[in-house]
């Protein structure tokens, strides 16, 4: 977590926060505070709220979708109301979200080539590599090679869809449910769902590899 940049929104190389970007962020933040667009308290609350959202919520959402076909269908059709109802979330003033389901035929992987758009309202702050120039520029032109570097092999007959979040819609992936999990309750299922599988750069954990 970058403590010096409250929004954490600027795209960066993983190993580099450019000094001019930092100065720009400080100047902008100072102006917004000075003009009363928001207060220090608003800013702190927003950082706290974003920090409180973690991929654990995404894992619970996926587990519910795996266990409950009705919820899954509602989630895929229109994510925001389905999530607000099932998880008592208030998503009213947050970006639109679409949930994509990986299937035997299609594998989705999400990126933002323009900056670092990510479903922060559900999953919190994106991993640093997600904002790196390398990931953003390579995943759209050689997704199989990038996925392989994450240890993720996609069979040639499975279609890859690289989903570039270029505008107002944010995307989260439901990974394929691992085999051998019939009858598992949601808590156990959620333990198989990792942050990277919600972005689509990894599969869910296989049951044998799960803790516990």
């Amino acid at each position, binding site marked *: 977590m970058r403590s010096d940049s409250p929004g954490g929104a600027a795209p960066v190389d993983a190993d580099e926060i450019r000094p001019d970007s930092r100065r720009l962020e400080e100047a902008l933040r100072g102006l917004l505070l000075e003009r009363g667009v928001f207060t220090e308290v608003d800013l702190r609350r927003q950082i706290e709220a974003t920090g409180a959202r973690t991929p654990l919520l995404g894992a619970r959402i996926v587990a519910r979708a795996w266990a409950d076909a009705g919820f899954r269908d509602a989630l895929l059709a229109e994510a925001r109301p389905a999530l607000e109802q099932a998880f008592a979330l208030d998503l009213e003033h947050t970006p*639109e979200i*679409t949930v994509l389901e990986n299937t035997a035929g299609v594998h989705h992987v999400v990126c933002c*080539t*323009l900056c670092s758009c990510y479903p922060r309202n559900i999953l919190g702050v994106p991993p640093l590599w997600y904002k790196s120039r390398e990931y953003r520029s390579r995943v*759209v*032109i*050689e*997704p*199989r*090679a990038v996925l392989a570097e994450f240890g993720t092999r996609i069979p*040639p007959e499975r*279609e*890859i*869809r*690289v*989903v*570039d*979040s*270029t*505008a*107002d*819609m944010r995307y989260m992936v439901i990974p394929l449910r691992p085999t051998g999990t019939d009858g598992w309750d949601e808590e156990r299922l959620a333990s198989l769902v990792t942050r990277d599988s919600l972005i689509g750069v990894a599969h869910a954990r296989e049951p044998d590899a799960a803790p516990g």
Partner: protein
Amino acid sequence: MSARPLSPGAKVRVRTGDPLTHCRTPRYLRGRQGTVVRALGRFANPEELAYHRPGLPALVLYQVAFEAREVWGERLTEPSYRIHADVFEHWLEPLPGEAEASS
């Protein structure tokens, strides 16, 4: 500005152009041909919002599917796949195609 709505399956081409101002249409897709997946709703125009203008009337945002082969041509080193990206209506130019009749 508000064009006829594009139906899923409609063939489109992303407009070319290189504005110096804020723009959410990635360069690598400009001039490329794709297929509308669905309309995602109306959103204030980010090219206006970026300069503290209202960006109204809101514009339709479309999810568009592109074949990697069409996007990258000779540069492609992998079997073809699809790229889905979200493009505002004023960046899309309808192409004649089978889906047009359904609109």
